[in-house]
């Protein structure tokens, strides 16, 4: 019987009372409420109904790969997850209309949870083959199962975390709220306290910072050991002066609900070592980088600072290895792929900025204000350790200036920067998309002209170029020219529907590597046999679609997920869809990061190609579903642009 016939057949028996009655019962619950009649009757009539008396085990890990999808028709089921090391036994309840065990079914494995009837219980049980068929046929059911996968994704993330923790031997989560990490009784004093008394207290209490507060415990300022060094270096004689003269006013603050990750990012970005924890304007604690990183071998803030102040190219180079360890550590502490790529981008930005400063120090200041632009993944803040250079230079140029002359003065600097970045591991761009290329060392006006040409004549090269250049951002130098350039770009694209259509066509060129028979399409021969490209085939469809929709809707942000968020805000993309895209995108990116980690640990060159058969069944299944989300996104683009 073909699939269509099977579903048509199901439609006929739906008139049978008990099938119909059971369908009516299920319709009270998601996802059955939204399913088509023929899909639901297909489900019901392939079920068997089984009774379990209170206390009886329904499904256990020892039963092997799960053979049925269970729906509780009546009664109550208790799930008991065997405690992993150091975890508490985890139990949960499944009541009428709810289902289990999605994770194990999708993962084609045994359940990790013992399910037992906690009272007399009837379960409808759908055989696995029928589940799979329904999953393929019914989008509502599939979306439901995929939402199940999101908790599944959490689980995968936890697994990744455990693996990495085992590698490092430290444990606390970057999601930990500051309330749990901060010193609860911050050392404080009034603003008229003499400096000497304050320093004495700091010394006695063994703390590196003193918070200056008013009567209502509102923070006025902070005084740290670093400030004390400055005081001493300045040769101050009178230590009886009030501390308010030497404190840093309006200290940076976060609420106690902020996460360790927020704090780490703030410290890294602002080059500070202490954060005041403030709730409702009242100081409730203080967090030092020591609190944050006492358990961690690689110190994020320290690393960022070391990069920013590296005295030489060789010093910079020695710090790059620490980024690798930091990524290990980040994954170990439960960072998501977004956090990791964000952090890599941040440290790369620091590295690039430091390289530029060192080059200028060596070659001399050209005396021309220029901005260092980055494109592509760097422009989207989505860099991994496997990255090459995509950059350019924008310089300001008055009507009276000769832009060619300015360019000739800047090019040697740009080329030197490219070379030094190459030494640091930012591979030279094969397509010569680098600031040292005279075509990419342009004045603001020249950039605008260049972009206008790309939009007005949509040659294949220009389309390819747009997928790189239109994800742009500045890393060094004044930002105003870049902002104007972005606005220029948005207004040109918005008015050019033909160009949008070409971008849409372009965005559909990379098809997710899924075959007709629910399996992966992999390279058939050569060195890349049996592998697929996670970046080009997996991430690019999301990136391209997000770029097109963002540019067409006047959205200036460049990161893919920020673009989706902005598109949801403007009602262009449904928020549930966007969630699914985000999860899928994150999963592919996480898989890619783990691949890179493994490769670099084994001393192999980094590559984006993965053999899906090397993944465990659960990861493979989720990866497949993630690719399916990419297909959905492409289908919606095709519809929107009538392709």
């Amino acid at each position, binding site marked *: 019987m073909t699939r269509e016939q099977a579903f048509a057949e199901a439609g006929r028996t739906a008139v049978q*009372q008990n*099938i119909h009655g059971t369908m009516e019962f299920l319709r009270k619950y998601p996802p059955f409420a939204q399913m088509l009649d023929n899909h639901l009757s297909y489900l019901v009539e392939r079920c068997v109904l089984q009774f379990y008396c209170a206390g009886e085990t329904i499904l256990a890990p020892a039963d092997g790969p799960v053979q049925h999808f269970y729906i509780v028709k009546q009664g109550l089921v208790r799930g008991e997850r065997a405690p992993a090391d150091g975890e508490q036994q985890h139990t949960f309840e499944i009541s009428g209309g709810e289902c289990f065990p999605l994770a194990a079914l999708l993962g084609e494995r045994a359940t990790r949870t013992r399910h037992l009837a906690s009272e007399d219980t009837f379960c409808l049980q759908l055989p696995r083959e029928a589940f799979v068929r329904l999953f393929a046929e019914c989008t509502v059911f599939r979306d439901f199962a995929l939402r199940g996968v999101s908790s599944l994704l959490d689980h995968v993330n936890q697994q990744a975390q455990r693996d990495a923790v085992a590698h490092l031997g430290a444990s606390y989560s970057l999601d930990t709220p500051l309330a749990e990490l901060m010193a609860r009784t911050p050392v404080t004093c009034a603003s008229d306290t003499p400096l000497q008394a304050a320093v004495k207290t700091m010394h006695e209490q063994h703390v590196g910072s003193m918070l200056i507060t008013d009567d209502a415990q509102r923070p006025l300022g902070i005084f740290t050991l670093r400030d004390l060094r400055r005081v001493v270096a300045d040769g101050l004689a009178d230590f009886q002066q009030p501390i308010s003269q030497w404190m840093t006013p309006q200290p940076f603050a976060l609420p106690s609900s902020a996460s360790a990750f927020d704090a780490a990012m703030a410290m890294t970005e602002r080059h500070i070592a202490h954060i005041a924890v403030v709730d409702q304007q009242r100081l409730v604690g203080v967090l030092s980088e020591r609190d944050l990183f006492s358990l961690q071998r690689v110190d994020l803030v320290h690393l960022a600072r070391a990069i920013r102040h590296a005295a030489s190219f060789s010093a910079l180079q020695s710090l790059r290895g620490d980024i690798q360890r930091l990524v290990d550590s980040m994954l170990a502490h439960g960072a998501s792929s977004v956090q990791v790529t964000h952090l890599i981008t941040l440290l790369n930005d620091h590295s690039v900025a430091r390289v530029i400063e060192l080059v200028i120090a060596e070659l001399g200041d050209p005396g021309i204000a220029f901005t260092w632009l980055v494109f592509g993944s760097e422009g989207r803040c989505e860099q991994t350790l496997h990255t090459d250079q995509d950059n350019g230079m924008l310089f300001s140029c008055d009507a009276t200036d000769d832009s060619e002359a300015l360019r000739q003065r800047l090019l040697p600097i740009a080329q030197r920067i490219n070379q030094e970045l190459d030494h640091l591991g930012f591979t030279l761009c094969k397509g010569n998309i680098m600031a040292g290329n005279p075509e990419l060392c342009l004045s603001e006006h020249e950039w605008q002209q260049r972009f206008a040409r790309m939009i007005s004549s949509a040659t294949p090269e220009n389309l390819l170029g747009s997928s790189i250049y239109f994800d742009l951002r500045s890393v060094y130098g004044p930002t105003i020219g870049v902002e104007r350039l972005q606005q220029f770009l948005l207004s040109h694209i918005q008015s050019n529907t033909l160009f949008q259509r070409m971008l849409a066509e372009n965005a559909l060129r990379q098809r997710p590597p899924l075959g007709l028979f629910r399996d992966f399409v992999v390279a058939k021969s050569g060195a890349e046999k049996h592998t697929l490209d996670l970046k080009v085939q997996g991430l690019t469809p999301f990136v391209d679609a997000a770029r097109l929709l963002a540019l067409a809707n006047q959205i200036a942000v460049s990161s893919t997920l920020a673009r989706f968020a902005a598109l949801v805000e403007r009602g262009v993309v449904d928020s549930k869809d966007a969630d699914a895209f985000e999860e899928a995108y994150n999963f592919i990116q996480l898989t890619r990061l783990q691949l890179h980690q493994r490769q670099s640990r084994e001393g192999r060159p980094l590559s984006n190609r993965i053999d899906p058969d090397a993944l465990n069944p659960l990861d493979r299944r989720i990866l497949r579903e993630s690719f399916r989300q990419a297909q959905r996104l492409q289908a919606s683009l095709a519809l929107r642009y009538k392709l």
Partner: protein
Amino acid sequence: MSIWQRWFGKPTEPLSSELLARLRELPPAVPLGAQALHAQRFIVMDQETTGLNPQRDKVLSIGAVLLQHGQIIMGEQFEATLRREQNVLNPSVLIHGIAPSAAAAGTPPAQALLSFMEWAGACVFLAFHAPFDQRMLARALKNQLNMQLRHVFLDVAELAPMLCPEANVGRGGLDDWVKHFKLQVLVRHSAAADAQVTAELALILLKKAEQQGIATLAELNQRLHAWRRLQRSRQHA
């Protein structure tokens, strides 16, 4: 309509050769032997009738559910409304809800009954107040197909108090047991839905039987005999 017809139905018309051939193909009845309770094919049935007199009233519809290996197979259901031209509108219409027009549109009784027996196959029947269903079905088969019903019937109304002596269920009707086990009935008093809820009750009872060490049909039958003797002696005591 003559008194004769009223009591015994219309004289049976000669059966077609096709029906006769199908009748000969029916499997023999299953005895209450040593076969495992778990593996036995049970057909849980319910009938809606024109009344409660097995001598006179007629089967209006049959609903049945397949139960085996401790499972109700949802996709294997039997449901038929029998064609009754001269269906008299009597009070039970209000209970079973089969309108005269629906009964008139049903399957010819001989066809429906034969299809049912073919579908039921080599089975043991389960029903709530089984003796009534057994007699109704036997008479219908005799009248319509000239066939002797030899299948074994087990009475769920009897199994329930035997296997759940602790339950306090009032008069012990189907509704009482449904309430006791908090079963959900989709629509009461339709043959199919009553068969379904009876089957759910039977699922519970078979599990209890298993827990009480009853593994075969023969053992179940022995227990039933012993239980009946006990009940009688209690009544006389």
